[in-house]
């Protein structure tokens, strides 16, 4: 594997390999000096055409803990504002001698396109509505950490599935590891076709909640009200929000997850985020170790070439 563009680049065995490597990097992260010399002399560039806090910082932290050099490209301060194309931007950066590019873009397929243009390893950090593979990998790791395995676990993914790259990658990864996935959303927030998706669909959150091992909430964007996909955020919360009352229906062991950034009071009540089984900050912490594993796999393990 030279690039990580989609969860399907990995397959079940590849996901397991990342999980095993992540165990080692969790150990590295737990040390007093959480740094190893593994990727000394390698350069990792984050190329973010779209805003991000946690993903960009997470990748940069991961690269630094592996002793790689990092460069950051933010579109706001770049020559893209002078009209430079994505291709020219990428080829300019590659000419400086780099080993990996972490790409985020609002259009699906940009990381794939970049991977055709350059020799460096390309990691998809979120492209349009398409995929966000490292998010799905850290979610798998977090579930395994608490529930031992995904095999046979019942996972509900709740919210705006249609516009969610997180949901696409999560469905691929969770089902590859044997989980039973149910998508819960109003019909307007589901993709036009779910043909070929190995999932069940429900429009009734209250009916699903008591039966699942994991509730995975997606961010509800207020733009969706303007597009008339939902009547109002209040109505969305009433039907699909994980309120305190709904959280009480969960089994005590059920995990509550959210990829962030959260809209407290919309898809998740503020009190729910601090429940003992809300693992939202674990997801962020594991994100660094998972991204170390991905960088190591592509740049250091020798498996990439």
């Amino acid at each position, binding site marked *: 594997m030279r690039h990580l563009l989609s969860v399907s680049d990995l397959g079940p065995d590849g996901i397991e*390999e990342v999980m*095993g*490597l992540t*165990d*080692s990097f*969790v*150990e*590295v992260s737990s*040390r*007093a*000096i959480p*740094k*190893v*010399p*593994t*990727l000394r002399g390698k350069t990792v560039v984050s190329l973010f055409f779209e805003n991000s806090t946690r993903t960009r910082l997470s990748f940069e932290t991961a690269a630094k803990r*592996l002793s790689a050099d990092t460069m950051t490209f933010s579109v706001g301060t770049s020559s893209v504002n002078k009209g430079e194309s994505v291709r020219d931007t990428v080829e300019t950066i590659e000419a400086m001698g780099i080993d990996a590019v972490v790409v985020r873009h609002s259009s699906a397929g940009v990381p794939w396109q970049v991977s055709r243009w350059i020799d460096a390893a390309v990691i998809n950090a979120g492209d349009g509505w398409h995929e966000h593979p490292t998010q799905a990998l850290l979610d798998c790791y977090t579930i395994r950490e608490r529930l031992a395995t995904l095999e046979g676990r019942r996972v509900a993914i709740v919210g705006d599935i249609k516009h969610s790259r997180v949901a696409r990658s999560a469905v691929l990864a969770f089902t590859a590891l044997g989980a039973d996935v149910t998508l819960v959303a109003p019909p307007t927030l589901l993709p036009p076709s779910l043909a070929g998706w190995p999932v069940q669909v429900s429009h009734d959150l209250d009916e699903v909640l008591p039966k699942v091992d994991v509730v995975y909430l997606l961010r509800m964007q207020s733009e969706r009200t303007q597009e008339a996909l939902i009547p109002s955020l209040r109505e969305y919360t009433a039907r699909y929000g994980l309120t305190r009352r709904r959280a009480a229906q969960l089994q005590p062991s059920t995990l509550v997850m959210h990829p962030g950034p959260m809209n407290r009071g919309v898809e998740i009540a503020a009190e729910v985020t601090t429940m003992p089984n809300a693992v939202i900050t674990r997801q962020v912490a594991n994100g660094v170790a998972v991204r170390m594993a991905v960088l*190591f796999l592509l*740049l*250091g*393990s*020798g*498996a990439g*070439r």
Partner: protein
Amino acid sequence: MPRAQVMSDADVRRAVTRIAHEVVERNHGLADIVLIGLQTGGVPLANRLAAELARIEGTDLPVGSLDVAFYRDDIGLRPVLPEAVTDIPFDLTGKTVVLVDDVLFTGRTIRAALNALNDYGRARAVQLAVMVDRGHRELPIRPDYVGKNLPTRRDEMVDVSDEGVILGDVVAVK
């Protein structure tokens, strides 16, 4: 292909016993000694050495395990993946570390291990125990405790297990 048993299980057991006595003798007891086995071959040997030291001195030593994959000098040149998670649940500062491995060959694994140990604290001293020293060093590294010095060709393979030590031709490398 020719394979020769160069140490029996009893030979290995006697070597562990002798090395245990040498560790005690050289360090004038077992104060501040910790054992760290290298993944994967050194880990069972470190545990056996610890059991032997407990038997002869009545002291239970801390035993850790170390995987050096992230510290190797051939990263990117060939497939390198960690075999297991490193487990050193104690600070090494001020301790005398006895590193334990099954076979000492080029010395590059030990070089990586010395780097790795640094990240767990500043050990007072590091000593090296190996079951087999097969020669062909590429770095200025020598063992403090040796089960057996075994002259080999570079292309031979040495296999250490509970059943003993076997020297044979390399099976086709994949």
